[in-house]
């Protein structure tokens, strides 16, 4: 337990030091606007490009996921396989009839509550509105967790659940 706390503190100090971010008291971490902005831009670009093989298959899109990503039973390996699979399938849709995946637009993307209160590295909350307007309009919400990696990037880490709903 002591070792874990030490490691977490070291990570926070190192991250704050390296990225020149101001770390608040009581474990609250102020991740920089640039870090947040970079993530939001990359993630929004990825989501917007769900139907574009060049986007969905890009390394930048795959890099949105933390190596420890686990989201309702899906690992980063699963997600990368799905992204590359879609990138391969989409160009052949005219002949295969491939249906693609539902597409949404993101709005009100918010990264908040960055802290190092829990075990492990600094995490943040991600929330956004999702809208599908293919024919009828459907609006719902996205909530997930991000992790600040040692390289200073925020990445999706998932809900840490190993079973599918």
């Amino acid at each position, binding site marked *: 337990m002591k070792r874990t706390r030490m490691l977490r503190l070291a990570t926070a100090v190192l991250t704050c030091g390296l990225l020149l971010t101001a770390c608040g008291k009581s474990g609250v971490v102020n991740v920089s606007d640039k870090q947040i902005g970079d993530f939001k831009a990359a*993630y929004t670009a*990825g*989501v917007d490009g*769900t139907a574009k093989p060049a986007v*969905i298959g890009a390394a930048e*899109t795959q890099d*949105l996921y933390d190596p420890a990503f686990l*989201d*309702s*039973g*899906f690992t980063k390996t*699963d*997600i990368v*396989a*799905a*992204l590359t*699979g*879609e990138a*391969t*399938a989409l160009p*052949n849709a005219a*002949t*295969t*009839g*491939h*249906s*693609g*995946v*539902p*597409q*949404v637009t993101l709005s009100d993307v918010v990264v908040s509550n960055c802290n190092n209160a829990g075990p492990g590295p600094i995490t943040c909350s991600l929330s956004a509105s*999702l809208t*599908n307007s*293919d*024919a*009828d309009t*459907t*609006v*719902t*919400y*996205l*909530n*997930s967790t991000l992790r600040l990696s040692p390289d200073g990037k925020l990445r*999706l880490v*998932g*809900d840490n659940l190993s079973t*599918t*709903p």
Partner: protein
Amino acid sequence: MKALDFRNVAYASAAICALGGILNSGPAAAASKAKEKAAGAYVTGDFHNHSTCSDGSLSMKKLIDKSVNTWGLDWFVQADHGGSSARNCTGLTANSTGPYPPATYPSAGQPATTGKGPNLTWQATLPNGVVDIKGDGPINPKAMWRWQEIKEFQYQVTEVESRRLSKPIWMGVETNAPGHEHVSMAILDGQRPWPATGTGNANLLAQFEYCFDRSDTDTSRGAENSWDCAFSSSPTGNKLVDATSRKIAKAGNLGGNNSAADPNLGHTKSVEAVKWLNQFAPNGSYYVPAHLERAGYYDPVAARGFNIEHLRNFNNAAPQIAFGFESMPGHQASLNRGEYGGTGFTRSIAGGTFGGTGYYTAKIGGVWDALLGEGRNWWFFASSDYHNRGLFGPDQLESTQDFQPGEYQRTHVMVRKGSNSLSAQGVTDGLRSGNSFATSGQLIDRLSFVVCAINPLLPVKANTALVEAAALNSAKNNAEVRIDGCATMGEKLVVRPGSSLVVGIALRDPDGSNFSPYSFPNPSLELINVKQPLNQPILDHVDVIGGDVTGFVSPTNTGAYAGEAGKILTGTAGDPAATYKPDDPATLNPTARKLKTFNSTNWSASSGGFRTMSYVVKNVAATRYFRLRGTNLPPSVPNETDADGNPLLDYLVIPFDTTKPGTVPCASAACPAHLRTINGIKYSSFDVAAWADLWFYSNPVFVQVTGSTSVASIIK
């Protein structure tokens, strides 16, 4: 030798058609893009009910009025039997059913009588008497061939009533299929129901009845019509056409039926009927076997039931005409539910109905799953098959025989309105599309069932939230989910190998009462100490059922193509002592199983009775399908459901042996007097048994995995 000849004709034609079907199935068309789908709504109707034009008790006018104004249906197809009838069914009613429309309905309903329906004959009421009755027939009073009734009398009534009620109402026939029992069919071509204007006709339907109904033994070629039932796309069938009647018929077998002298002739003629519809009315007709388990297994020398190979043959011959079956039969209030089993139907498949549904559907992994497992577009429908209310009058609410159209069973079908109004063609297209579901007892009245590919860029819960939100929105609007990357009933989603899916469902368990007249506790649920008013059913759970799709079976692969299911070996259908042959492999889909159950513990309830649920299927490697069923009965209700929630045979005593007690007591003092009563104990039976045991079935959503088996092209 003759038998072999006819069988060869049937199998050869089926093989050719199957090959065509297979060739046509690839590459298969995916579900339409959302923007290409006109907005639509599910509308309720019924395509199989009888009037006094055959053996029903109500005039067409009163039956149609009941379906729309009393029970609230949006569309209706008047489908009497084929053959002939002596009763003038379009004149004034002159008996207990009263004049139409009635001046008032007696507050207690009209009295029960044994004589039902008008008994005025055509011969006694037509201006020139028997001279006005066309075609063959020496009987006095002479019966009128149904083709003449349809063409000259019935159609005109439906057109007027359709416009009076501003509903699509048109003519069909419950045809006596040669070699089999009955088939619900219609030909819209020529008819002009609301909202169409002008004068239409049912000439093509009348011709079909003449040409292909085995009970129509008229040889007159439709008198002045001079019909010729040979047709250009049927060189093999044309060789069987009789020189005089110009239809498939033989001396001593004018109906062209199966017989000892002509084994399988009838089935061959029925396949020809499907081809004929495909040539002359490819968009306006359908051919849907009715209560297909009732008459039992197929018999090559008689007119009886349907085996799976016959359904395959019909579908192969014309998949856009023969696209489903009525496996939730009418007659649900009869003592032998669905009229399956007991006297008259001693060979019913597997002994009877299961929760009011035939064995071909009720058995997971059975005939329907076998057909879906081929990737066939083969859909499930319900009908009321109303004739009369047994001991009760037509305006009473109790019944010991049938329910009226819309009173108990409904088929909900997607009609894409776009900028146009609801229309009969829209309903026909909707039936063909498979975007439909069927219910009993208004257990649910809204359903949005969708399968979507998972968007890997979104968290899984965001995917499920999106699908659930879309499903709930569409259920609230009585519509469907229209999102690219999703497919609904009758459609297929095309995905890459390894894709993951969200199965999403939203439905409405309507508040308040259904049309049951009984508010005493559901006697079946009382067996497990649940008190629930019989007229206020609550959906207990929904099962997701699925199976693999492994491709069309060739007719030449006889062992996989043809076989019997639920065939009685000894005893009488419905008798617990009866024995049955194990189902043949051709009738099975061993991969089909219950995949998931939703109930109050894992669905989200929202106001107005809406329930929303979803689950994720990971890494789909091969083509498959999903379908739904739901019921008001939990698993393990004695004599109703097994531990896995499957419906049990609806009676465990011979239905007409009234000396035997029933299986579910009806203990309330309010239980009606007409129930089966032994030693002063009433037992749930007739309409009470039907209202106690409610189900719904959805049509499937296919998921086709690229590089795996293709699903037949969905026909729009």
